[in-house]
């Protein structure tokens, strides 16, 4: 007995089938108290599925359950719902947020675990009628937020906050639980800028020092090397290896994940840029909650890849969203010399701009529609592509849609059962590829991409970045990449603009010094 009780969690021979496809094949996993255990694998390898099983998510049980055994603290556990999991002391920070937008941060953190006070009624009729102790709930929430070094107001509403903040609120909610033994992080850092990710990693270390075991999923292998004690590698639903951190390297992990070795990060062949501007932005102000642009002046040269970097909440996300008319914007924008009307998505798309949103499940996809229709829908609407016309009537040309989808699925290596699969059932990274396909089919002259590689594995990331460079090289497309990952911007961009406090703090070259980037992001550039 004592031998098994060493482990907080043991999973034995876990298998799972979704609609006849095996997505997990006999996975074993063991974690000790206070251990930080990393799980790595390509998009669709089954990481989230394994965690969903552990957390008793309904997707698992409504699709026929799973096979295998789970032991929590030495006792066999039958986890049928997230509620069971919580009772066993398991917490989970999901890859896709599970927050209620209309509630305040405190309410979200405390949902279903409200702190209550006695009142005269509850003394008579029982604990269900106790008054909510808002003040103490607020204090708890504050504590959890402070733990993460997050300065945001605990009474702010969640609706409209930038994704980066939502992620931290999810984490705060889990940290706040008192009986927590095991905490699962499914790609917690995917939405964070590097400095915020560092905060998070620090918090992870603190938590594990207090005896909480942590399961950590990420596509950023250096984070794995930074915090994990043990590492499990999955490939196509199978267990490939268990490793200790000391006995492995990033390169080895990458090779194990993909089953072949991955070359270096790609480089954007530097070229002298023409002096023509594709886009001229003057005094752009965008009312995007949490990511407001407050007077951006920026020129984008024709045919370049321009990066926009900066910390979360500084407004880098707001720029593209404002120009594409997704959030109210003011200011002056000229596209190839012609004034671009703001606040009209349709106009922007018609004139040859396209946008890959950072909010892929909300803005980017029609989750219940097929892969092929997701790719085609915007082009049908804006350009009348994929249509057969009969006088004033039109019909969608199913054959053309299918042919194009098949081609794209191959070109971008989208892992799906076919063009008819609803995108909801794709893994996170493959959903991102569908978003890319959707933007490319418009054949835009200028492409805005926000967080293009968020949540996608190193192989796919390479593919996405290569695709972007290729679009620039072959088609002369102008590309503006907004990203929290500086390393990624530096590998593919011609120039990198850094946003601070809603304005452009400056423009750097990709091979400028790290310190320059750091200073500029913190708003201290030129103050030396």
């Amino acid at each position, binding site marked *: 007995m004592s031998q098994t009780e060493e482990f907080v969690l043991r999973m034995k021979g876990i298998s799972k089938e979704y609609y006849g496809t095996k997505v997990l094949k006999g996975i074993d996993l063991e974690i000790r108290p206070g251990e930080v255990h990393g799980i790595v694998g390509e998009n669709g390898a089954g990481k989230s599925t394994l965690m969903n099983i552990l957390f008793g998510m309904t997707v698992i049980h409504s699709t026929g359950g799973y096979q295998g055994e789970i032991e929590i603290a030495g006792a066999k556990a039958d986890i049928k719902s997230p509620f069971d999991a919580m009772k066993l002391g398991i917490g989970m920070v999901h890859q896709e947020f599970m927050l209620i937008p209309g509630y305040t941060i405190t309410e979200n953190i405390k949902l279903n675990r409200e702190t209550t006070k006695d009142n005269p009624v509850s003394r008579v009729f029982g604990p269900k009628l106790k008054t909510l102790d808002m003040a103490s709930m607020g204090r708890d929430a504050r504590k959890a937020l402070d733990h993460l070094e997050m300065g945001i107001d605990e009474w702010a509403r969640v609706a409209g906050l930038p994704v980066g903040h939502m992620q931290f609120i999810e984490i705060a909610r889990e940290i706040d639980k008192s009986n927590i033994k095991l905490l699962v992080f499914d790609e917690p850092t995917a939405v964070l800028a590097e400095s915020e990710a560092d905060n998070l990693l620090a918090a992870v270390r603190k938590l594990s020092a207090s005896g909480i075991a942590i399961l950590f999923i990420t596509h950023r292998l250096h984070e794995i090397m930074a915090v994990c004690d043990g590492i499990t590698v999955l490939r196509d639903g199978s267990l490939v290896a268990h490793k200790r951190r000391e006995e492995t390297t990033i390169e080895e992990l990458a090779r194990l994940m993909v089953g072949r070795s991955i070359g270096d990060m790609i480089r954007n062949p530097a070229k002298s840029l023409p002096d023509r501007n594709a886009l001229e932005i003057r005094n752009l102000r965008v009312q995007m909650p949490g990511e407001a642009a407050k007077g951006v002046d920026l020129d984008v040269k024709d045919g370049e890849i321009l990066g926009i970097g900066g910390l979360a909440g500084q407004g880098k996300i707001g720029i593209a969203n404002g120009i594409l008319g997704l959030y109210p914007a003011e200011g002056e924008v000229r596209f190839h010399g012609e004034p671009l009307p703001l606040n009209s998505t*349709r*106009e922007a*798309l018609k004139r040859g701009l396209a946008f890959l949103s950072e909010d892929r499940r909300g803005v980017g996809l029609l989750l219940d529609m097929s892969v092929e229709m997701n790719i085609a829908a*915007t082009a049908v*609407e804006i350009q009348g592509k994929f249509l057969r016309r009969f006088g004033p*009537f039109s019909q969608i040309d199913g054959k053309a849609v299918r042919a194009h989808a098949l081609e794209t699925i191959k070109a971008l290596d989208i892992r799906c059962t076919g063009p008819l699969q609803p995108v909801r059932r794709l893994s996170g990274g493959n959903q991102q590829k569908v978003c890319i396909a959707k933007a490319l089919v418009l054949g835009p002259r200028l492409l805005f991409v926000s967080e293009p590689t968020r949540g996608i594995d190193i192989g796919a990331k390479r593919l996405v970045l290569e695709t972007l460079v290729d679009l620039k090289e072959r088609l002369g497309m102008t590309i503006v990449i907004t990203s929290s990952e500086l390393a990624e911007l530096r590998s593919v961009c011609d120039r990198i603009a850094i946003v601070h406090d809603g304005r452009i703090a400056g423009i750097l070259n990709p091979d400028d010094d790290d310190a320059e980037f750091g200073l500029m992001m913190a708003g201290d550039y030129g103050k030396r």
Partner: protein
Amino acid sequence: MENANATPFARALRGIGAGLRSFGAPRIIIIVFLVSLWITSTLLKIPFPAVLSDSLVRLGMNAVLTLAMLPSILSGTSLYFGLPLGIICGLLGGVMSIELDLRGFEAFFGAVAMSLPLAVLVGWGYGWLLNRVKGSEMTVGTYIGFGFVSLMSFGWVTLPFHHPEMAWAIGKGIRVTISLEGRFSGVLNNLWSFDILGVRVPTGALAFSALCCLLVWLFFRSRSGLAMKSAGMSPKFAEASGINVNRMRIRGTILSTVLGAVGILVYSQGFGFLQLYQAPMYMGFIAAASILIGGATLKTGRISHVIIGTFLFHSILVVALPVANTVSQLGSLAEISRSVVSNGIILYALAQKGGAE
């Protein structure tokens, strides 16, 4: 446990299980209920061909009304509880066609043609209103439907219709029920109808319903149809694709209203009467229950859900009545059992949120 070495038999069983699951438990329960009613009715010596004939007639009469739910669901305004609005437009068309003394097909299609502009107008206004109350469309829709029915109760009294077939013998206004005998009663039901094994098939009505379904199906495969569906599925996605979400919701509501108007005319020609005043009040619920039973949800639906649902719902009503009457001799039972069964199914359908795959 059982995996790779599962026998083909076990695998086949599992396949059937999955198939049934994807068909949806509510539908299976309703089908079992219907079949058991059918069996009971045969045991009670109620002629089955007659029951089936009635079911087909009801299907033809109600399919278009159920179909009216679909554009609303798909464009994102949820179930079309404003159906009485469309129905009243249709009834106005019917009344005008009598006022103009039209007969036969001319009367039917004349009524349709005259109700269309009304329906477009009313649908536009109603859609505009729904855009103002996003999130509570169903509640607001229900009240507006009821309100409009009540308002039109005055309308029927005051509008200048004078044709002797409709007017009260004394006083102002038109009658509660207007016979369509010699007007357009049965124009579709009797068209190309034939008997087979004692079952009467109302070919014309079924064909007309099928035509309406086909048109709606084609519409949703067109550019505007796709835009409407996108707006309904994800307003954020639609906006990012340059689609005007509010406009799509209005168009969906107009389409539903138009189908409601056409639907009530199809219904009336089968029924043989125009029913005015309070009659349209609860028809929205019946249509809503039908499409839900067919497998639609508040956010998704298909033509097949319309057809399956209409057939199941109305078949149960058709057979439940004679069965109840035979079992008990109480005269008033017919009406009671009718409302118990129909309201029961409506409640059940609304309670079953999950539709078919």
